[in-house]
C-alpha cells in the first residue's frame, strides 16, 4: 500500500523522491489544495472516504499510511 501511496503523490505532484518520511509541506512545498487533491486521488484509488478531520492532520506520508490503514484500505 505504501508504494501505491507514494506513486499517487508522485503522479499528482510531479515531484519525485517521495518516501515514507517525506513531509508534504516542508519537503514538497505542498499547500492545502495540493493535499486535498492527493486525498481525492487516494479516495478514488482505495475506495474510501477520508473525513475532513483526518485530512487536516495529514502532514507526511506516514500520516496517510496510518489513515488509510485505520480505514481498512487494501491494495
Amino acid at each position, binding site marked *: 500500500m505504501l508504494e501505491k501511496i507514494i506513486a499517487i503523490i508522485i503522479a*499528482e505532484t510531479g515531484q519525485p523522491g517521495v518516501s515514507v518520511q517525506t*513531509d508534504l*509541506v*516542508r*519537503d*514538497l*512545498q505542498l*499547500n*492545502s*489544495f495540493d493535499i*486535498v*487533491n492527493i486525498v*481525492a*486521488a487516494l*479516495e*478514488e484509488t482505495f475506495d474510501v472516504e477520508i473525513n*475532513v*478531520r483526518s*485530512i*487536516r492532520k495529514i502532514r507526511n506520508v506516514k500520516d496517510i499510511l496510518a489513515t488509510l490503514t485505520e480505514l481498512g484500505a487494501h491494495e
Partner: protein
Amino acid sequence: MNEPLRGLWRFSADFSGSDSAQRLNQALSWLADQHLLPFVPVQKVVSARGKPAFADLPGLHFSISHCRQEWICLIAGAPVGIDIEQPHPCRQEAITRRFFHPREQAWLTQYPEAFFSLWTAKESVVKWSGKGIGEDFSRFSVIDEAGQLHDTPNYRLIPFVTKKGTPGTMCLSASLRDTVHDYFLD
C-alpha cells in the same frame, strides 16, 4: 491594544517549504521598522482549529498562502483570509463533489473554468473565520445564484492576481478598507 495596525498590508516573497515563519517574521519586522507596529510579536499561539495568532499582540491578524515558489501574507488589524492557487490539472470533479456547496457544484457544471477562483474564495473565507477546511466547507457558498461572489455583512471577497500572475482571493473583514499596501520581501 485593540487595533495595533492600521491599514491592510500584503507581503509577497519567493518561498521554499521551510521558511514561511521566517517570511512572516520578516514582514512583521518591516512593519515595526516603519513604526506601523509597536513591536514585533513573538508569542505565537495556534487555536484548536489551527489558526495562528500572536498572544503578545492579539489585535493583529494575518493570513498566509503559498503556491509553488510563491508566498503571500495579508496582515491587518481585523480578521483577514487569503489564498492563491495557479490553475492546473487536478481531481476537479472529485473535489467539486466532496468540497463544494450544491450551488457551486451547479455553477461549476456550467462553468468549470471557475473552479480555482471558487476554491480560493472558499479557502480565504475559512482562513478569515479561523475554522480552516472542515465539515462546514461544503455547507456554505461563496457565490449567489448568478455566480457572483457573495459578500456578507461581516466580510467582502476580493479576487486579485499576484505580481507573478497567480490568481487568488482575499476575504476582508467589513471594517477594513479595500486599499492594499503591497510590499515584496527580498
